[in-house]
């Protein structure tokens, strides 16, 4: 494991932890984008170029911007008199810590034998071929799902006409 990996890991953990800990919702999203950038860089480090750029494009270009829009529309970025964490935050954090402890125990006590292969060269053509041949059906289903999500999101977020007579 190179030093670059640890720098990127630290960046990712810092960004995501800040995203979950900061009080201001917009700061959370901005920290989250930092974490996503770190994660994308980790993907690049692991040799998955296409996935890394897709990660940036989808998560920063779409999800983060969408979340920011939602924050702006729900006016939840203002100074909050009430606390940013729910009443059960101690329980939640405790559960998360326990989950991490269990996972870490399981990971460190499993004898993994990673294949010491050279960095796999994955080209876009290979990904395209695999998507179009082996994973053609999942791809179609994903397209259907995205279309349904698009329509569904619009319908859910659309103001009901009879309910809001202005």
């Amino acid at each position: 494991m190179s030093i670059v990996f640890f720098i990127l890991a630290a960046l990712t953990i810092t960004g995501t932890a800040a995203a979950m800990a900061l009080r201001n919702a917009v700061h959370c999203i901005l920290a989250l984008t930092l974490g996503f950038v770190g994660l994308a860089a980790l993907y690049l480090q692991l040799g998955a170029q296409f996935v890394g750029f897709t990660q940036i494009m989808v998560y920063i270009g779409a999800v983060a911007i969408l979340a920011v829009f939602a924050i702006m529309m729900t006016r939840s970025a203002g100074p909050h008199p009430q606390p940013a964490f729910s009443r059960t935050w101690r329980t939640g954090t405790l559960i998360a810590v326990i989950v991490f402890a269990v996972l870490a125990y399981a990971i460190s006590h499993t004898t993994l034998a990673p294949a010491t292969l050279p960095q796999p060269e994955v080209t876009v053509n290979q990904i395209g071929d695999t998507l179009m041949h082996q994973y053609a059906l999942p791809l179609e289903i994903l397209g259907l799902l995205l279309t349904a999500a698009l329509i569904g999101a619009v319908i859910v977020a659309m103001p009901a006409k009879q309910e809001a007579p202005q």
Partner: protein
Amino acid sequence: MTTPDTIDQIFVITKHWLLGYVPAPLQPIASAILSVLPVMGVFPLLFAITTVLERKGLGRIQNRYGPNRVGPAGFWQPAADGIKSLTKEDVVPRNADQIVHFLAPIVLVIASFIVYAVLPIGRNMVITDLNSGLLYFFAVGSMVELSVFMAGWSSHSKYSLLGAMRATAQMISYEIPLVLAAVVVIMATGSLSTVTIVNAQTGYTMGFPHWFVFTPWGFAGFILFMIAATAESNRSPFDLPEGESEIIAGYYIEYSGFKFALFFLGEYLGMFATSGLAITLFLGGWAAPFSFLTWIPSYFWFFAKLLVIIGVFIWVRGTLPRLRQDQLMGFAWKFMLPMTLLNVFVAAAWHFLPTGIIRWAVCTALLVIPFIVFSMGLKQNKKLQVRTYRFAE
């Protein structure tokens, strides 16, 4: 190829010659620095030249002189502007989110700079030939939206927030046509690498180049791409995010001094980058327009094409009035998106039809007929009346 290789490859040769003096363990880093530094020098210089050209060109379009006082014919104007913005006081609003306010222009300029990594500006002259270069370009381009939002939100001003919301909404909407217009080229070349895309366009038939713009789908794709690129770089007529008359300067209204200059720089760098991508995708990159002109170095052709496209940008800015927000969104979703999807279909049809005049006729008809139907349909529910002028004309 009659080009003397030493002139065409002079920068590559110089770089390798310089690398010879660097100790071997440092060579990868030195190579990267030597590749990046010229780009970081040339494009801001181009920005400086463009600002003065734009002001002069807009002036001439409006029948006045542009800036003509500083230096010969006003060409030192950008230097004067730069010194002015450097020496100005940097005002930060008291209620602003200090850190985000500070970071926003930096993120914008960094995002605008790193997209140049995959632009081939000459034969063998590209910083890095990524296998998924186009995806990289669009992914990094989407970071610009975030910096715009950061600037608008952190300023704690309603105008900048409105401008930022307009800008992000506009950029998201026009990113889809932008990517879809580029998809036709990916379909034709079967690669996301910008270098491969340019190499696919370097051939000549009877002296004419194999640029994608000289095909029906390529021409339509180029036009659609340029429209989307204009909207992506927030330029007139899509400059609603910085509409002076309603929201003053949009998301960077609360910036002053050098940070304001950085926003300007970032905006122009983004424009150059998308123009450069349009050149790479449709106009043959660094390839010469005719086979007998190949003796002129490749980088010259790239920058010549870039200047032509910048000129068209300025021309359009001097001509068209600003759109309304609903017109902008309607144009993106009702016209650009269907046309780009249709263009993808036409590119596929072009691929499967046999070579010849029939292919041309079918593809052109497939594009032109829906276009005419579209324009009639969009015009029908509008009551357009001939405007009469009392004083003009």
